[in-house]
């Protein structure tokens, strides 16, 4: 562990290739094992447990009876499930790109040397700290059809009044707006951290080469941001497909089920109907979908980030 530089250097080259490879395997496993054991015990086992639960008829707290694939069959036939899946897909397709596209320029701006940048950074951080409950109350007020300031502003501008959370046709989009606001700070912080990894000399060199600021950004910074973008893409997708809290504090899945997304449906099944097996089956299907999407996304970002510093 505390290998001093000299002896190690002496051994260099003389070490057989195979033992080095074995050493790599051991090092790799050694490095990941604490985290993997913790995550395995408190993350993977519960996931396996849910998988097993999805083949059971259970009320969540008492021993269940084996139900085979009955819960999956029920799920496929459940029209509410398909509606919920469609809503989750629409939500995700809107929420993820919007958040990322808005976050990047803000992060670049917050990476400039300008007066008060610390305050701006703190400001962007605020929504992250605001509890979901408070966020829900505030947006319910802002978007209140009768007494909210947004409709008041629309009226002043001579535009028609909207129903927002109270309109079955608009509630999901109002939810997108609210959650983009809530997650923007998160994405900005990730990008901000990633921008620090851009070596200053690279940008400097690009500038000396006569690159415009924008071109330098595109050709130097943007590729270096690919891993961060990959992280955000995966992370935001995982979270948006599991949207729940924000629905719970605003629309409760309504009006007329317009915001009953997959996990809200699952919650209803688990804690209103107490059909633990069905809820677990929904969870497992969702798991497979997210897994597939994530693997595709990871493969795409791996290709995009094959950038090397020359």
């Amino acid at each position, binding site marked *: *562990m505390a290998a001093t530089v000299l002896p190690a250097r002496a051994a260099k080259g003389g070490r057989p290739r195979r033992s080095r490879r074995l050493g790599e395997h051991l090092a790799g496993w050694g490095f990941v094992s604490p985290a993997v054991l*913790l995550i395995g015990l408190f993350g993977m086992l519960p996931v396996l447990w849910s998988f097993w639960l999805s083949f059971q008829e259970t009320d969540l707290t008492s021993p269940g009876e084996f139900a085979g694939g009955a819960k999956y069959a029920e799920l496929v036939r459940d029209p509410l499930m398909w509606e919920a899946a469609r809503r989750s897909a629409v939500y995700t397709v809107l929420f993820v790109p919007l958040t990322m596209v808005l976050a990047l320029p803000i992060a670049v701006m917050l990476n400039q*040397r300008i007066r008060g940048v610390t305050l701006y950074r703190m400001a*962007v951080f605020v929504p992250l700290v605001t509890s979901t409950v408070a966020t829900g109350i505030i947006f319910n*007020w802002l978007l209140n059809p009768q007494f909210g300031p947004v409709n008041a502003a629309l009226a002043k501008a001579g535009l028609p009044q909207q129903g927002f959370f109270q309109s079955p046709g608009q509630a999901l989009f109002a939810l997108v707006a609210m959650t983009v606001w809530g997650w923007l700070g998160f994405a900005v912080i990730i990008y901000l951290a990633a921008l620090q990894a851009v070596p200053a000399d690279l940008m400097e060199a690009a500038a000396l080469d006569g690159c415009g600021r924008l071109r330098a950004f595109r050709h130097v910074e943007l590729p270096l941001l690919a891993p961060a973008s990959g992280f955000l893409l995966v992370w935001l997708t995982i979270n948006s497909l599991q949207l729940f809290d924000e629905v719970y504090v605003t629309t409760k899945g309504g009006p007329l089920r317009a915001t009953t997304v997959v996990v809200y449906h699952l919650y209803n099944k688990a804690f209103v109907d107490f059909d633990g097996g069905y809820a677990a089956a929904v969870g497992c299907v969702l798991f497979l979908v997210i897994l597939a999407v994530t693997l595709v996304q990871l493969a795409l970002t791996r290709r995009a980030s094959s950038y090397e*510093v020359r």
Partner: protein
Amino acid sequence: MSITMTGRAAKGPATRGPAADGTAPRRRSRRPSPLHLVLLPLSLVMVAPLLWMVLLSVSTKEETRRFPPGLPHGIEWRNYTGALADAPLAHWLGNSAIVSVSCVAGNLVFCSLAGYAFARIRFLGSRALFVAVLATLMVPFQIVMLPTLIMVRAAGLTDTLGALIVPNLATAFGVFLLRQFFTTVPRELEEAARIDGASRLRILVQVMLPLMRPTLATLAVLTFLQTWNDFLWPLIAVQNPDHMTVQLGLQTFQGAHNTDWPKLMAGTVISQLPVFAMFFVAQRFFVRSVATAGLK
């Protein structure tokens, strides 16, 4: 130290200038930046809810029971003294601090190790293992929370602060985040150190981690935020009132039908101060990192 030196040598031409502290290169000027025109309104939109919370926290109960809401007529500091006096707020904050600081420390250590290995070491089963780690994020918490409770029980942690700490000592989020960012560190730096015969651990600690300061700061903040504001898990994992975290404690201001909004908001504002302090400290790392990374 010699490693950092080697790293520097491999790094090509040294550049110096106003931008060497990591912010993008830009000539200092006295003229206010046009970016203020974007950032100022944006900031207002972002902080509006905080202002609203602060306003509620200095309102009277009667003032919070109006709709549409209006400005308070005076400043009601009693909400703050009340929140501090009527409830063991300090005790709850202490519990939250123990939990969050432990989790931040655990994540920084365990996720650095794992993230580095997943990013840079080719070892048997690394891909599969990484996907398995990510997979734990893909089942909604509503489903895994009761099974997780069973694990906590099996580990003998039921109704202890440990039940809030141990399951969060290493998170898939942290492993994933750090793994992604380790891939951005130029390989040359590492290779040079390896040729010098440095061990993996030494490379991680002396070459990689100094380069990762902004990311580590980000992980620290987000882990702190997550554990500090977590509600559902503490709710079901802890029963003893002595182990209440501040988020659980604040619930004692929320009755079945009536909520003491001013007091709740005063408590909330107090409870979020450590999070802001944490972020304030962490964001300073966003400027310093590269300067200390030996890239000059």
